[in-house]
């Protein structure tokens, strides 16, 4: 009987993988459902086991079973791993994803699983923490805080009860790495959490998954059941979110697990000292925890050898939006933005010129192609007025209206604000209103300079909308002040980072805001 491998990943299924799989079952094949390899232009991907190894075909339609089995299908890809998109990657974390049966304990063990845990458990907790520190691993959720130092704080915190919490509330637009890993290699995350538990002395862990990730929830729950004996005495459970983006913020996430309104806590106290239920808590992103089994099994050096500056190891970059080769690309830090977008991503899917990319989700900055030599590195991005975040890259072609994108950033913040702090709660709504005024004012022509700017007309007790200066210039100045208040006044990153997309759009694309275009790059 012919054995074929077809992804059951949510993205593959969305592209028709279930129907294709059924067709192969109907044709008498043994179908193994894997995770996704991570290149969506070739999904649904079918890999046929042959004497020469797995031969890939993709995309494949449900009525094309015969030609695939014949080897005559026009989309024959050969060895998938040898495709340039995959050959260029350094898959530390996603090494098994798309290859193994996600819920096969045997497959996991056969592909190097549990080695990291066994090594960790044979060492004392401090040694494990030291290894993670030496690897240079930094929080993959966005903040980039050194994981080993966080673990050290929890290890050193007094308390009989400690927790490991995995943040799988992956809410950034254009990101899907957490989901892919949980669906494609759930034991990897479980192993990472078990290692963390050993390192800090925790007995129980939670995986907080957003409610939209129904497949991941189901896969993780099954995987936890299957591996319970392997990770004992450490225990794990899945908690499902309720649709709030802000619950991806670590303290709001903790409140949500505790059954409270998902609202950001003020820090201090740090979750590492007083986290879940007031106990010392490691809270890490899926990708941080999933990087740990490799670090333990291959050694800190193998991980730290890869990277750039203070950003060590690999980053599973997610290419999305208007991009030709959308998918997951795990690579060492230091690759440039241009390489990622143009070389790996192959430019836009529409074929039009790239005008902007947004890196780091809805709160990330927009970059014009003039900044494409920026290396993928936490510090370099910070310096350039942006952030890596969860390493989602969303590509836009030249039809994008950046004023609308700035408005969207404010609107996103308004929709997702928890409502606790004032800059975010009120500021985001005011930001939308300012953007509406700017957008209204730039078309058809600049507002005539009427007598709207006198001091009396701006009196505090005025209720007339006419009494404020609605010219694009005044509104843009107000927008900058608002962004300043939000950036430095907000309680958490939602309000604090919303100014990144807004200001980067304004700075790099002023012509979309009714102002003159910037001086061409020649001036550089």
């Amino acid at each position: 009987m012919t054995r074929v491998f077809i992804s059951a990943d949510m993205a593959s299924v969305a592209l028709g993988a279930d129907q294709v799989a059924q067709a192969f079952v109907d044709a008498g094949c043994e179908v193994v459902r894997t995770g996704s390899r991570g290149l969506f232009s070739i999904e649904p991907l079918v890999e046929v086991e042959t004497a020469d190894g797995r031969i890939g075909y993709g995309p494949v339609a449900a009525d094309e079973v015969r030609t695939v089995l014949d080897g005559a299908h026009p989309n024959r890809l050969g060895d998938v791993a040898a495709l340039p998109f995959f050959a260029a990657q350094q898959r530390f974390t996603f090494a098994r994803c798309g290859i193994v049966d996600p819920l096969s304990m045997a497959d996991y063990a056969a592909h190097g699983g549990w080695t990291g845990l066994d090594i960790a458990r044979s060492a004392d907790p401090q040694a494990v923490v030291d290894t993670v520190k030496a690897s240079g691993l930094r929080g993959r959720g966005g903040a980039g805080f050194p994981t080993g130092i966080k673990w050290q704080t929890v290890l050193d915190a007094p308390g009989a009860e400690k927790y490991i919490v995995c943040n799988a509330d992956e809410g950034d637009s254009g990101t899907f790495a957490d989901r892919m890993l949980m669906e494609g290699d759930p034991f990897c995350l479980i192993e990472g959490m078990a290692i963390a538990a050993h390192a800090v002395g925790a007995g129980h862990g939670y995986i907080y998954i957003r409610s939209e990730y129904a497949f991941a929830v189901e896969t993780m729950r099954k995987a936890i059941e299957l591996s319970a004996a392997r990770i004992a005495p450490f225990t794990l459970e899945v908690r499902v979110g309720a649709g709030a983006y802000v619950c991806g913020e670590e303290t709001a996430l903790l409140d949500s697990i505790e059954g409270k309104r998902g609202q950001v806590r003020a820090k201090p106290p740090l979750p590492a000292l007083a986290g879940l239920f007031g106990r010392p808590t490691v809270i890490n992103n899926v990708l941080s925890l999933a990087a740990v089994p490799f670090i333990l099994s291959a050694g800190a050096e193998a991980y730290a050898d890869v990277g750039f500056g203070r950003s060590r190891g690999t980053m599973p970059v997610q290419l999305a939006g208007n991009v030709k080769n959308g998918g997951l690309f795990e690579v060492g830090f230091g690759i440039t933005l241009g390489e990622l977008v143009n070389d790996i991503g192959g430019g836009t899917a529409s074929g039009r010129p790239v005008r902007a990319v947004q890196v780091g989700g809805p709160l990330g900055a927009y970059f014009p192609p003039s900044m494409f030599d920026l290396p993928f590195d936490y510090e370099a991005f910070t310096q350039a007025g942006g952030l890596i975040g969860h390493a989602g890259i969303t590509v836009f072609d030249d039809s994008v209206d950046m004023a609308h994108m700035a408005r969207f950033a404010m609107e996103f913040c308004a929709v997702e604000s928890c409502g606790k702090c004032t800059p975010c709660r009120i500021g985001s709504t005011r930001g939308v209103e300012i953007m509406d005024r700017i957008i209204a004012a730039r078309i058809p022509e600049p507002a005539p300079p009427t007598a709207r700017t006198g001091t009396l007309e701006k009196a505090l007790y005025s209720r007339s909308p006419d009494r404020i200066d609605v010219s694009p210039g005044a509104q843009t100045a107000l927008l900058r002040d608002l962004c300043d208040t939000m950036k430095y006044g907000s309680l958490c990153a939602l309000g604090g980072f919303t100014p990144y997309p807004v200001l980067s759009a304004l700075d790099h694309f002023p012509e979309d805001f009714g102002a003159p275009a910037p001086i061409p790059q020649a001036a550089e």
Partner: protein
Amino acid sequence: MTFTRETDHGTPPALATGRNVTLTIDGEAVTLPEGTSIMRAASLTGTAIPKLCASDNLESFGSCRLCLVEIEGRAGYPASCTTPIAEGMVVRTQTDRLKQLRRGVMELYISDHPLDCLTCAANGDCELQDQAGAVGLRDVRYGYDGATNMGQPKDQSNPYFDFDPSKCIACSRCVRACDEVQGTFALTMEGRGFDTKVSPSQGQDFLSSECVSCGACVQACPTATLIEKKVVETGTPDRAVVTTCAYCGVGCTFRAEMRGQELVRMVPWKEGKANRGHSCVKGRFAWGYAQHQDRILKPMIRSSIDQPWREVSWDEAIAHTAREFRRIQDQYGARAIGGITSSRCTNEETFLVQKMIRQGFGNNNVDTCARVCHSPTGYGLKTTFGTSAGTQDFDSVMQADVMLVIGANPTDAHPVFASRMKKRLRQGARLIVVDPRRIDLIRSPHVEADHHLPLRPGTNVAVLTAMAHVIVTEKLCDEAFIRARCDWDEFQDWADFVSEPARSPEATAPLTGVPAEELRAAARLYATGGNAAIYYGLGVTEHSQGSSTVMAIANLAMATGNIGRPGVGVNPLRGQNNVQGACDMGSFPHEFSGYRHVSDDDARAMFESAWGVKLDSEPGLRIPNMLDAATDGTFKGIFIQGEDILQSDPNTHHVAAGLAAMECVVVQDLFLNETANYAHVFLPGSTFLEKDGTFTNAERRIQRVRKVMAPLNGHADWEIVQLLAQALGLDWKYSHPSEIMDEIAALTPTFAGVHYDRLDAEGSLQWPANEAAPDGTPTMHIDGFVRGKGKFVVTDYVATDEKTGPRFPLLLTTGRILSHYNVGAQTRRTANTAWHPEDRLEIHPVDAENRGIKDGDWVSLRSRAGETTLRALITERVAPGVVYTTFHHPDTQANVITTDYSDWATNCPEYKVTAVQVGLSNGPSDWQEDYAEHARQSRRIIPEAAE
């Protein structure tokens, strides 16, 4: 005192660690305890950092973002409320950059706030307004055509405060106050982002939500969103006077905020050591009775109780009363008259009434309403420990690890202290409740009792002795404590007694109804759970074995060493505001002030020399004895100050017969109460707002009552007693209550150090306050018991004679409810009736179904003493076989049902156990109809002839 607001340091004090840190704030070096917030540190050293969401009675929250500061070496602008101080930290609170940020935040606030300051009720008393000024906001560039939260409907359902969500700034202070301070969790923030709103319960209005109207949210609100209706009507206050609440024994202190002679609002005083800035619906809001139209402001007399009242001058009323009392004494003997002091009046007034009786009447026929509530506490604790009072201060509960609550319903009867208890329980303290009913404390948000022992009414002694059995037989006693502090032989006698198999939980379970395993677990927890504190109420004392129960409680505390330090102790929760004080002041027929027996020659000699008369060495009559003597024809006249014995005392028929048999009943009260329907002289009383004096609360704390307005009736109560004493020929010349306190201090060793100057300077003193304890005594019996060795007393369980049977198969127990106080004379004359317009009979669904009773049906309630009707409330809060009602409404007359059984030692009535039958009813009982007619006739008033 003029009107100044209390300083709010923004965050609570740090938990004491004993370590200090030094930092620099705006260039000034500051040393403060570790854990203090930057905001508090700045405030304590005179720098007010702008803030809106912070308040020093709430944990820091960090939402308003006005309090941002700069810290050298730290990125960004941390919120000063959530950032603790650290050694060497350099903080700047006022820079141009901070001004810019704060103005930016304030601009956002004001962009969603109505600009109706001039017509807003909080104008001049609004933190938002103040902070807008403080940050220098001059312009709102966002305009006013954007989205707002304005225009939402007001919620005016609560009778005392309005909720106007249009003015809300979503600071969550109200929600946090409800959670952290009150512990009711009635409020929540609903929705998110710009739509975040305060919501009582799940989108209900305040009145129909779980809100208990404690006022904490109103106090916390920095705008006019939650504001007292009275402020809306009257305007903001212009002066404030600190005084003490006249409701329950918690003794909350309040700022009476006044506009001229008009009381605008009562706001709990943060410095108050009993209430720590918290309040309940009664003290905070239910003071309107003081101006109620029912108040009687002119003296009245009549020759018989079937005549209408005749208004007379004060001179005539006083002269008439003195004449009548002297006539009766001439005719029937010196002991034919007596008096009752009031637990609602001040220490000074109470002292004067008993002095008038002992010195002027020449007998010891004085008693007080403590007779019917905590007299067993006096007897029991005096016998075992040597003093008649609770052993702790209220703060002690914050160090308790286990609370044993017996026969008390703190969330209803002592709500402000209950909030402290709940706070401690939320911190992890364990809870045991011994009560026939499922009181709220057993399960409320974030509080759950570890053990509820639902005993059958009347079996307290059996339950407590069974707990002792477990503690002794399982060797959980604190032998070192007992050997050091108690009489070892007495302990052994007691231990032998409780160890007998007949006292075991298993043996007594059939009669107590408490499962043995549950009782054993509770006893183990009490004995081994760390600091264990007992809190008890009238469910302990108002039984035929009330005094035995108090002693059984004392035995438990001594056996486990839970006495003599913070966090432990035996704590009677006193019912009335000054019931402790009334007892302290010599209101009992056998005791002078300070609990010295009248047969004690030294004590008597001291008073005889001070008062210049010979005093009787024989104890006088107790209230029930006075009534018995009246029906026997030997007791003919009584002076009753501030107590309504017809409604509050048991067996109403007997009380009525006793009063009707007297020739001169003098009632001094605010209203024509039920007792006044049997009176011949009515002397209008003054409210606590109209006089100076002191109250002593349940923790022995003596606090000042201060006059905030002139007495509407013309005289403070102490002045009226002085007028009467003078008319009786006594040479009294007090010009101020402080002089009375000076006399009390001179004549009472435990009060020797009490003086108004000290009370004014220190806020309060807990007696004993004397040379041995110059700063007063928060915790008693620290190094030794007042009586020397603690005394274990054998408490044999004796079932009450009040037994159920075929005619009366149910047990009635009585109590009170949050919104009403005692006989309801005050609270029924306020909007508190919105919550509890009538007394209801709680009955278990099974008992109701057996009788065909549906919720809300009128039912008759019968005992061998009498019959009344009221409406049924079907609930599983009571066990099958037990029914429960309150006694707040005279129409119900719950005490028609209660019997004249009483405590063997003190005659405290057995209110808590009456065998009754319940059945469907068509209307009021004959007694209710007759009484209503009598009351109507009796309350007729003929105005004073044209003046």
